[in-house]
């Protein structure tokens, strides 16, 4: 293998922090959700890369990734259901404006 592990990790870091940046700055909930996907993806890459480079005999990293993808799918589905529901009731999906359910 001719690409060092750090290259993969670098890509994953950038993706992760881009996700963090997006999650914090975005107001739209769907956009936040997308940032979340970025974060998850970067984590997935990390898992896979570490699995491949550190413990190539085993499959833990891959399975973690697999499960994360599953969970992410579930999470996204529920989140979008909620977002649409919220949108239906308040006609807005900006995270700042939805304060009613606080307190």
């Amino acid at each position, binding site marked *: *293998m*001719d*690409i*060092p*592990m750090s*290259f993969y990790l*670098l*890509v994953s*870091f*950038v*993706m*992760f*922090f*881009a*996700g*963090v*940046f*997006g999650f*914090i*700055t*975005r*107001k*739209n909930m*769907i*956009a936040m*959700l*997308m*940032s979340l*996907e*970025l974060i998850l*993806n970067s984590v*997935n*890459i990390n898992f*896979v890369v570490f699995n*491949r*480079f*550190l413990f*190539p005999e*085993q*499959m833990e990293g*891959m*399975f973690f*990734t697999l*499960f994360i*993808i*599953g969970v*992410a*799918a*579930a*999470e*996204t*589905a*529920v989140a*979008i*259901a*909620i*977002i649409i*529901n919220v*949108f239906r009731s308040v006609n807005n*999906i900006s995270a700042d404006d939805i304060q009613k359910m606080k307190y």
Partner: protein
Amino acid sequence: MDIASITASQVIFFILAAVILAGSVMTVVSRKLLHAAVYLLFVLLATAGIYFLLNYHFLAAVQISVYIGGILVLLVFSIYLTSQVGEKMDEPGIVKKTVTMLISMGGAVFCFWVLCTGQFPYADQIHLNEIDMHAIGQSLLGTERYQYLLPFEAISVLLLACIIGGILIATGNTKKED
């Protein structure tokens, strides 16, 4: 490394890396939601490419089918449902943006620094052995060590719960309106 020794896989990696870097940054800064979704699509695709590169074919397939085929489609639909096409999102406040930028960049630099200075006991040269589907299936449905029946079932239940929850949430309001 010099130009001559560049291999095909390196080229592919750099392309993928470039797509991921650009895509993820664009995803989070693009002011149009649909554009962001498209950037995300590229990022996810490139991630799948990375999985291929690392010889996790099954994972790459799952990535493409679940993320791109499921999640992204769902996202796009919801974008259509909740916003006007071409609508631009609000610019975040400058303070918030700067602070977040600092945190993110700082985090990235910090991680990079750790990466550079840290000692990882890994081999640069690895053999990219293919994982066969049989082994994956065995691991998913076995109960031995390194086998994952329990999480598998947990995920199944979770998904079931999500289906039910999704339905409930989606229909909750209509009932009231009737």
